[in-house]
């Protein structure tokens, strides 16, 4: 009834039926948060009641979608990666497929970032992608696509689709358990994940263990006691006398919700534990993530980078950059003075180069992220050596300016045709690499197995017979390996270049920014900014210990960089010499100026 009401009352606001704004989508101006005591609906739109014989999981699309237009929301940034018409904008963190036995770590994305690969190229279907990475996705996107793979159609009917889980962000209750959500996704309980994660329900069983003919609406009684079908149990007294439940919904997403997918762990001695690391200065000052990263109903969230307004339709994109807040004082942002900083720095560097990420150190540290390493989930490998290997605070060029980046060196098997490298599907590579690299050689830490050039050569030889076209190659450590006249040849190649994505957090305070102490923070012969080392990550034994220096990622010449750093040693002398010269010139001008003045006064006085 409410749904009918919602759909009929406000159609006048719609351009088409999909754009109808529902009850909860029209702002009445009240800053108070509506209390969400609402009915639960299942996937088919049926009401859920505690008296139901079969307790079904609630569907966010049907439950939240009764008052909030799901079709508008699903176009938002967190859900629209699969839409080829959406501009990718600035490079971002990819999903990283890792398989130690096939010595693979390859950046994947549905977005068209340069240097990432479409999951389909690796033979990963949207359904499989959801199973692999849905742990740290808020649902939607590939989770809602109908699979084309015949083998997966039945499995998808068992698992259900992974709908957008509004509660992942908007549920303020302390009982919202995203770790449970990740566990449910791993069990292929896509349909049950949102219910399992909320504070008033629990789910046991696994869709993964069910046969392809299992129907969640009419579950069979299973003979095998080890195979438990997914079942929902709502907590006692959660339903009121109208069969409604209370959701603690907030408009302003709490920071802890963002942290589940957007946490980082710097692999450095000084900050190896949570309590040792400082949080972003904006959070310390009392702001939350969504104070800057805002969106409306369309969930087209502000990402906050320079020139985002040129690609984003969010009206706040222009006013939510570092510069826009810190030149206007919006939200209490201090206006920086940048004492003694020549203005050329603002054309050569982004704000983040001096203010964001860990301060550059001699050896760029490793990094673990929520999305890459499943931080916060039960399946996390807590070892610092666990794949994928990401390096942080690599100061590299981005759109003509130097900015801090995270970096990954891709490693994967591909086929090369006319200098273009395409990854080979993992199901083709896996059985072949298993013949050469044994499971026993995989370290328990999750690090690379130690692989020799001979092993690479063997696998490439095996791949030659499997490929219909192209030459088999292996990419790792910034090089492309192929067999040339029965020898393994390594060469530079575009596909072997590291994938870098710019970072903006955690922001350090002004006193901790580069240049706060002196120009020597960057302009010295041993500064990490230019001469810090970045390890080249590779499974190959021969590549251990290879490093690159920061300036190589900045498009600078080695001789120039060293000469420029060296010239700063003479800066104090420059100041002294020029000030002395100015003093002499001033004295000469003063002396003869006074003489001229004396002459003029004599003339005016009529004296000889």
């Amino acid at each position, binding site marked *: 009834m409410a749904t009918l009401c919602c759909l009929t009352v406000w159609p006048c606001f719609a351009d088409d039926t999909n754009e109808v704004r529902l009850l909860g989508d029209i702002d009445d101006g009240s800053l108070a948060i509506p209390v969400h005591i609402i009915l639960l609906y299942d996937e088919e739109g049926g009401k859920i009641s505690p008296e139901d014989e079969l307790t079904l999981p609630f569907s966010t699309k049907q439950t939240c979608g009764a008052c909030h237009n799901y079709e508008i929301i699903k176009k938002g940034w967190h859900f629209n990666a699969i839409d080829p018409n959406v501009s990718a904008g600035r490079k971002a963190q990819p999903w990283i497929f890792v398989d130690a036995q096939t010595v693979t770590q390859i950046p994947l994305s549905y977005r068209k970032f340069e240097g990432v690969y479409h999951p389909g190229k690796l033979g990963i279907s949207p359904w499989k992608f959801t199973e692999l990475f849905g742990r740290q996705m808020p649902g939607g996107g590939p989770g809602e696509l109908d699979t084309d793979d015949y083998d997966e159609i039945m499995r998808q009917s068992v698992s259900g689709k992974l709908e957008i889980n509004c509660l992942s962000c908007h549920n303020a209750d302390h009982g919202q358990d995203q770790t449970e959500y990740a566990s449910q996704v791993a069990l292929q309980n896509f349909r049950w994940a949102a219910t399992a994660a909320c504070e008033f329900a629990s789910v046991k069983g696994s869709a993964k263990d069910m046969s392809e003919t299992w129907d969640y609406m009419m579950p069979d009684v299973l003979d095998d006691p080890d195979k438990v079908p997914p079942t929902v149990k709502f907590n006692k007294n959660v339903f009121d006398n109208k069969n409604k439940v209370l959701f603690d919904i907030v408009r302003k997403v709490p920071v802890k919700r963002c942290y589940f997918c957007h946490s980082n762990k710097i692999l450095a001695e000084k900050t190896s534990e949570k309590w040792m690391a400082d949080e972003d200065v904006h959070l310390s000052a009392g702001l939350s993530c969504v104070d800057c990263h805002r969106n409306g109903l369309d969930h087209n969230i502000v990402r906050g980078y320079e020139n985002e307004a040129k690609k984003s339709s969010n009206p706040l994109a222009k006013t939510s950059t570092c510069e826009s807040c810190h030149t206007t004082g919006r939200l209490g942002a201090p206006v*920086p*003075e*940048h*004492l*003694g*900083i*020549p*203005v*050329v720095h*603002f*054309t*050569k560097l982004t704000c983040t180069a001096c203010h964001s990420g860990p301060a550059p150190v001699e050896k760029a540290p490793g990094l673990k992220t929520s999305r890459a390493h499943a931080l916060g989930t039960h399946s996390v490998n807590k070892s610092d050596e666990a794949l994928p290997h990401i390096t942080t605070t690599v100061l590299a060029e981005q759109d003509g300016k130097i900015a801090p980046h995270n970096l990954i060196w891709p490693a994967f098997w591909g086929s090369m045709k006319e200098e273009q490298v395409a990854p080979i599907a993992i199901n083709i590579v896996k059985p072949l690499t298993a013949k050469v690299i044994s499971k026993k050689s995989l370290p328990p830490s999750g690090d690379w197995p130690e692989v020799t050039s001979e092993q690479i050569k063997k696998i490439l030889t095996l791949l030659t017979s499997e490929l219909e076209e192209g030459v088999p190659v292996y990419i790792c450590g910034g090089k492309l390996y192929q067999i040339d006249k029965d020898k393994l040849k390594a060469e530079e190649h575009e596909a072997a270049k590291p994938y870098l994505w710019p970072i903006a957090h955690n922001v350090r305070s002004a006193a901790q920014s580069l240049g706060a102490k002196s120009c020597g923070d960057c302009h010295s012969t041993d500064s990490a900014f230019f001469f810090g080392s970045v390890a080249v990550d590779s499974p190959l034994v021969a590549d251990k210990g290879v490093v690159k220096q920061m300036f190589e990622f900045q498009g600078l010449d080695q001789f*120039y960089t060293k*000469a*420029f750093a060296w*010239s700063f040693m003479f*800066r104090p*002398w*420059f*100041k002294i*010499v*020029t*000030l*002395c*010269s*100015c003093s*002499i*010139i*001033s004295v*000469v*001008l003063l*002396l*003869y100026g006074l*003489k*001229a003045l004396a002459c003029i006064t004599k*003339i005016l006085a009529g004296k*000889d």
Partner: protein
Amino acid sequence: MFSIVSITGFAVLFFVIILHCLCTRQKPDKLSGEKRKCLLSLLCFECKSGFLGILRKLVYLAALLCFVVLFVTGFYQPLINGEHISGFPIMIHATAAPVFAVFIAILAVMWAGECVFDKNYWPWLTKLLQRQPKSDSKPQRYEFLLKACFWAILVLALPLILSIVLSMFKIFGTSMQELFLDVHRYTSLATAIVIILHTYLMIRSQEAK
């Protein structure tokens, strides 16, 4: 804006110089062999004899060389590429700059005494003021302009140098840094014009002797 002003300024300067050359040139057959030699000898900068004279000439030539280096490195990127000076040009510019400052200071001390306006440059003014100039000798051709250029260079040198040196201290913020940069740009433009004019007049005055 600076590019437009600079290009206009240099265009006007060179136009004036060329026009002046064309209007005041002597016919080739009137030039004696001696004068041709004079023209060729390093474009006739001042030729006083003695150790001090040689020193003055050397300092002047060195300052001129520094100016050429500063001119090329300072104007090429902003005028041609429309960007801040960076890379090797800024290093060369920053190396030549203090050397130039030292030479300007030395030239200020060495030449100030001779560049006093002590002759009868404008008889009508002398008559009006009923004054007698300190020196009775007749002013040489372009002498007044040369002296005026000398003092203009010294006056311009102060903001030119100080605008960069002061920006190196952690005293001034971004708005002042931008002001200093503008001051440096425009005073360097003015200084360059005056130095080129001064050099041209030096050549012409030696030619006239």
